[in-house]
């Protein structure tokens, strides 16, 4: 391991999760994202706190305080009221903990008997690829039976040399394909789609694509086009296509009015389109 131990900001750890890959998994949510999706369900994970202190006064239990000019969170005092998050106009959260690789490995040790593996998610986990590479290497060393999954928005070009080791040590990826059309993707996420599609093909080729997810929003997105194109890439493979119904839950309030959940009928039609295009494993949630 590198001499200066790597650390990363983590927004949340769910010890037991059944929706982040195969079996029961420990899911680790990293802080920070390079997209800014309109429908983001955890917008407070997008930015890293800029220490403006605005939220500190809002906290009813004094769980937030300032130390060496930085906001510190004392989780044992926190009552989970989320007033801090609502008051932050910057899409950040003060409820973030810094973990070193070995501290995080200790968290895995507690639950190792109960899980099939770990999944890193976000925010956007791949932005911390160096940390994750070391973390996964440590896991494989201690518990070779645990699998290591990455949940990603696909924005980094994973074919590049610098990510080689990271991709190697990851057992499989879960990739969001939010839209296929360049303009639509840009409007939704403020980033280009090019790398996402490149990754879709690349990860499929190397057999490290566990699942693709598309969130379906009524009217706003050309869901059909996205699902058709993704389906053509993953047809006849074991890659699962998860078709996710957009829900208001967690989404920024001002955007809730402009985004509408699809009907169950639309979801079923999209699923049967994928099935017709020979996607073997589909799931609507």
């Amino acid at each position, binding site marked *: 391991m590198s001499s200066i131990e790597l650390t990363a900001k983590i927004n949340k750890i769910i010890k037991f999760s059944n*929706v982040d890959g*195969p079996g029961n998994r420990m899911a680790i949510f990293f802080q920070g994202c390079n997209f800014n999706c309109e429908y983001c369900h955890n917008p407070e994970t997008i930015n890293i706190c800029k220490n403006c202190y605005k939220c500190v006064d809002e906290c009813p239990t004094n769980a937030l305080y300032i130390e060496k000019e930085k906001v510190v969170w004392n989780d044992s005092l926190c009552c989970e009221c989320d007033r801090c998050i609502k008051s932050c106009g910057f899409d950040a959260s003060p409820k973030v903990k810094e973990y070193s690789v070995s501290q995080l490995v200790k968290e895995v040790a507690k639950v190792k*008997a*109960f899980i*099939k593996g770990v999944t890193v998610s976000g925010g956007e986990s791949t932005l911390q690829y160096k940390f994750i590479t070391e973390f996964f290497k440590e896991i494989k060393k201690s518990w070779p039976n645990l699998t290591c999954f990455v949940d990603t928005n696909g924005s980094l070009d994973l074919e590049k040399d610098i990510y080689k080791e990271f991709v190697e040590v990851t057992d499989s990826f879960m990739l969001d394909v939010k839209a296929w059309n360049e303009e639509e993707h840009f409007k939704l996420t403020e980033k280009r789609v090019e790398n996402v599609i490149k990754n879709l093909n690349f990860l499929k080729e190397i057999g490290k694509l566990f699942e693709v997810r598309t969130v379906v929003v009524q009217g706003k997105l050309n869901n059909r086009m996205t699902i058709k194109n993704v389906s053509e890439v993953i047809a006849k493979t074991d890659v699962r296509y998860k078709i996710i119904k957009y829900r208001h839950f967690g989404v920024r309030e001002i955007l809730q009015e402009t985004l509408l959940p699809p009907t169950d009928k639309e979801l079923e039609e999209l699923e049967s389109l994928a099935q017709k295009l020979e996607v073997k494993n589909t799931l609507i949630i």
Partner: protein
Amino acid sequence: MILETIKSQKITFEQKVVTLARLAEGSIEVLNKSEALKKYIEDGIICDLFEGNAPYRPRYIVPDYDVFMQNGSKFLNLDKPTNIWEAVHGLLILYKHVPSITTMPVYLGNIDYLLEPFIKDESEAYLAIKLFLKHIDSTITDSFCHANIGPKETKAGLIILKVMRELELPTPNLTIKYAEETSDKIAVEAIQTALVTAKPSFANDKIFRDDFKGEYGIVSCYNGLKVGGGANTLVRVRLGALSKLASSKEEFLTKVLPEVSKEMLNYIDERSKFVIEESGFYESSFLVKEGLLEKEKFTGLFGFVGLAECVNNLLGATEKKDRFGYSEVAADLALEIVRSMSSLVQNHKTKYAGEFFGNTHLLHSQVGIDTDRNESPGCRIPVGEEPEIFEHIVQSAPFHQYCPSGIGDIFVFDETYKSNPEAILDIIKGAFETDMRFFSLYSDSCDVVRVTGYLVKRSEMEKLDKGEQVLRDTTILGKGARDNAKALGRKLRSE
């Protein structure tokens, strides 16, 4: 009371017959009870769970059905079965002659292993098994009746699970014995079935097999007993109520608990003695004569409920962080109490417990009865106070080793697990690696739900709410547990 029973429109004919028999038995006094014991009974601290005043059959009977499959039965004039129809037919006849405290059998055998040799044509076997299970549900109208499958994957086992998913019936209760040799395939099928119909539960095969030196059966709620034997009686102590007699935890551990245990053990002896020496059961039952039962494989059960309330009382714990399920101090005290009880039980040698068990009774974490208030089942964390599932398992597991004849926790999972049943299997594997003995689950969307250890249909309880008759007497108990003990308010596990 007799006339009231005779005239009742709320209970069925069978339920009337059983009630009348109980009233008759209750009208005589043949057991010796000490003054101290009588006081404990009066105060609701010791209770024999309505076993009656003159026990004329063991409480739980666990016949060795393999003997029947090999020999048939002279008494019942049945030959050894040679095909699937004769096999289910023979078993159904035999079941009607297996007594218990409920009058109906509490154990039906490892039904997959019993039927597997007869499975030639799978579609025929499917029909035979479907009729078999339907027949059991409609005639053994009490879901303390329990069948076992596993640990090996069998064709019969897979068919049984499929049929149970389709029928969604509360009887029989079912447990899968889970071991390393259990395939993931049948384990996942079992979980998918449990998410629809609240069974099977999972038994940690290795722990039970070690404790019972080989074959064991899971019977009634989740009681582990020796195949070919059973339990003559089950008497229990309400630890929550008992704890109020002590002014400190020291006094509880050194005085109150040993005193009550002595009375309990003597009472278990006294009841067993009547079954063994007076009732004539072991001399007259064809099950004994034909080798399906052996007196020496019977023991007595020392049950307890309300560990959580006991510990919280003794510690004066009102805040969540100090209570059983959350605080380490509470967990340590609880373990000390269970350990003391366990050694009190083991050190009591008696000729009224079978040689197989070294002439000792067994400790049993009892699930409670419908009229219990303020006593949680056995070692369980009170419903509504459960911590996150991981903490819950880690907190519960250490108690499981002390209760060979049964202990268990129930977990309720939400719909999302139906698309990832493997996640539950991972949790069960971890729980068993942490030495949990028994794990039950159901989904919040089931009609059939697990109350404390037995199963009922929500829709049937609703019938009772309206004053209508129901087929199964367990529904009445379920309604009581729901109303008095919030038994259906368990924490929902999601994500």
